[in-house]
């Protein structure tokens, strides 16, 4: 198992290294898609829990899997596998596909590592590797939009890193717990798209090539979630204030994501807002866990499952969007897209029903006023999600087919299908029995059924009435913010250049030579000598 663990982490790195040298580049490209296979195998085969100690690595690294880790590793590896496979076809005729592949593999190594690592420093290390390497994916196009997205992503990611680092250091000491929790929530929140920290997501998802976006949205976003799960004192400490705040933030994200998402035109951006919205559910759940630790054990299993569900669905959506982009939005493609869309919307018999039902149950026991509030709001949220999906399908449906469908259809479709299959089945396989029975109950199915239907209805009405959604730029609040900053920068005086200058000896002392020639005259020197003599006499005779 040790070997396999190490292999899971080193396989992408080795493949990336092969890409560095021109000579071994073709081999690296060929192997690149399959780099997550060891990790996938590990996720399936590893005994739970298990641990590998590597004291010489970094600051003493512990690798291993627990139940949560296994699920995360499973879907992460799966998504990376699919995306890698997809990418091979997607970028087949790109000159810089090896560059993309390189960053792809580095990011992958980081992401897989995050799932596998158990100690704080190691987690941080892999998380940073993932975050930074992803920059290469985002700016792959080298377009202005991509660079802008990359820059904003990087700024936020780095700020997040620092918060995470601080949080990880702080969390070791109980006295700093509140500060640690805040740091961690905000730090990982950059990745999970907490409101206001979410601004980079739409830009990045829209700018990144489809396979990259798929892993960003599917796999990496959940790494932030995993960070929360690993390091927040969930189920241990009661932090009502922080918990409530996090829940509020979650609610805000859920609705805000939907609202702004509806005002998007790019599928990538829309999906990003969908992610922001979906991640709001996690915030809600974790906030609940902080508010009421006794609820956490149940919530944990739901959250893990939800993560699996959302990750696969989102990745599948992205791949689907990609397929549509390349091969036109044929009816079959739209049908394929509808599956994850429905799943996200929580339609009956999808994994969505499973996890949303579980979540509702988990949150039902919250103290007032949360229980009532959520009971009222969550259905609305489901409706919002469904609306968003309808809007997505509409946007994709209008996609003009690419001029030259060069990439092999199979190369794009096969990975997508794999993901669709996994989405359809995996959550059910992994779900605990109780959740499953509950989700399959009639009431749950009915509950789940109405929002998609209502959304479709609304969609049709909107289409008929030619409602035009207002347009909001991706990144929403970021736009005015950046304008303000640019204004300030123009206005702010440049830092004054400091000049270091020693007083030039010659200038400062222009007079010495004159005085010196005075001293040289016997008359002066003699008078001075006599004065010294007098002084000495006075001082030595004790008159002084």
């Amino acid at each position, binding site marked *: 198992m040790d070997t396999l663990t190490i292999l899971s982490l080193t396989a992408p790195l080795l493949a990336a290294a092969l890409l560095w040298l021109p000579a071994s580049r073709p081999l690296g490209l060929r192997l690149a898609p399959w780099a997550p296979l060891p990790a996938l195998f590990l996720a399936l085969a590893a005994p739970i829990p298990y641990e590998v100690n590597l004291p010489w690595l970094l600051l003493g690294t512990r690798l291993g899997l627990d139940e949560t880790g296994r699920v995360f590793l499973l879907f992460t590896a799966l998504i990376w596998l699919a995306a890698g496979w997809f990418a091979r076809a997607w970028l087949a005729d790109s000159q810089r596909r090896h560059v993309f592949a390189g960053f792809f593999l580095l990011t992958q190594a980081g992401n897989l590592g995050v799932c596998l690592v158990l100690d704080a420093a190691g987690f941080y290390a892999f998380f940073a590797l993932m975050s930074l390497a992803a920059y290469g994916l985002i700016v792959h196009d080298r377009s202005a939009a991509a660079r802008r997205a990359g820059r904003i992503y990087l700024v936020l990611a780095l700020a997040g890193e620092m918060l995470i680092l601080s949080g990880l250091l702080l969390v070791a000491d109980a006295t700093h717990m509140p500060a640690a929790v805040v740091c961690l929530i905000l730090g990982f929140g950059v990745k999970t798209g907490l409101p206001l920290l979410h601004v980079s997501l739409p830009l990045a998802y829209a700018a990144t090539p489809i396979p990259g976006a798929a892993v960003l949205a599917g796999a990496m976003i959940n790494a932030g979630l995993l960070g929360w799960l690993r390091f927040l004192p969930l189920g241990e400490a009661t932090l009502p204030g922080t918990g409530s705040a996090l829940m509020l933030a979650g609610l805000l994200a859920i609705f805000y994501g939907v609202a702004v998402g509806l005002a998007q035109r790019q599928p990538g951006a829309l999906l990003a807002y969908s992610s922001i919205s979906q991640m709001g559910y996690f915030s809600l759940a974790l906030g609940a866990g902080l508010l009421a630790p006794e609820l956490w054990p149940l919530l944990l299993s739901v959250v893990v499952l939800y993560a699996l569900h959302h990750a696969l669905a989102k990745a599948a959506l992205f791949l689907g969007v990609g397929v549509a982009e390349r091969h036109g939005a044929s009816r079959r493609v739209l049908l394929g897209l509808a599956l994850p869309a429905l799943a996200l919307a929580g339609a009956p018999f999808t994994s969505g029903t499973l996890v949303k039902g579980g979540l509702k149950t988990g949150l039902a026991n919250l103290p007032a006023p949360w229980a009532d509030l959520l009971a009222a709001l969550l259905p609305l949220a489901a409706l919002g999600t469904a609306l968003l999906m309808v809007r997505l399908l509409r946007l994709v449906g209008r996609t003009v087919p690419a001029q030259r469908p060069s990439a092999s259809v199979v190369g794009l479709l096969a990975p997508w299908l794999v993901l669709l299959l996994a989405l359809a089945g995996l959550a059910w396989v992994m779900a605990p029995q109780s959740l499953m029975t509950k989700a399959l109950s009639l009431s749950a199915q009915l509950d789940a059924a109405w929002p998609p239907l209502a959304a479709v209805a609304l969609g049709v009405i909107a289409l008929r009435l030619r409602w035009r959604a207002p347009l909001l730029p991706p990144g929403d609040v970021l736009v005015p913010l950046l304008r303000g900053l640019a204004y300030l920068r123009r206005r702010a005086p440049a830092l004054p250049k400091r000049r270091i200058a020693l007083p030039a000896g010659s200038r400062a002392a222009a007079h010495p030579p004159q005085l010196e*020639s005075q001293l040289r005259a*016997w008359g002066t020197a003699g008078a001075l000598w006599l004065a010294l003599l007098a002084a000495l006499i006075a001082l030595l005779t004790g008159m002084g």
Partner: protein
Amino acid sequence: MSAALLYALTGAALFAIGLAGLLLQPHLLRKILAFNILGSGVFLILVGLGQRDGTIDPVPQAMVLTGIVVAIAATALALALARQLLDLTGQMRLPEDRSDAEPVDD
């Protein structure tokens, strides 16, 4: 007060006169004269004070003999220098003591 002490007092006065001359007179020849007068004053003090109790003291006398020889040696060297200076500059004064003295920068 013994005669010797009287001469010693004279020596003090001569010393002061010589000193003033050495310091104030710009002309080198006069400086050399002044130095000799100053020296004579010291010699008088040496012998005068040494014999202030009236006894003849050969030790300061011998010292003064030595001193006189040293003085002529110094005088000769000084004169040689002064003459050389005269030949080189046309004046028997140090540059800083000349009426047309300019700031010396060496």
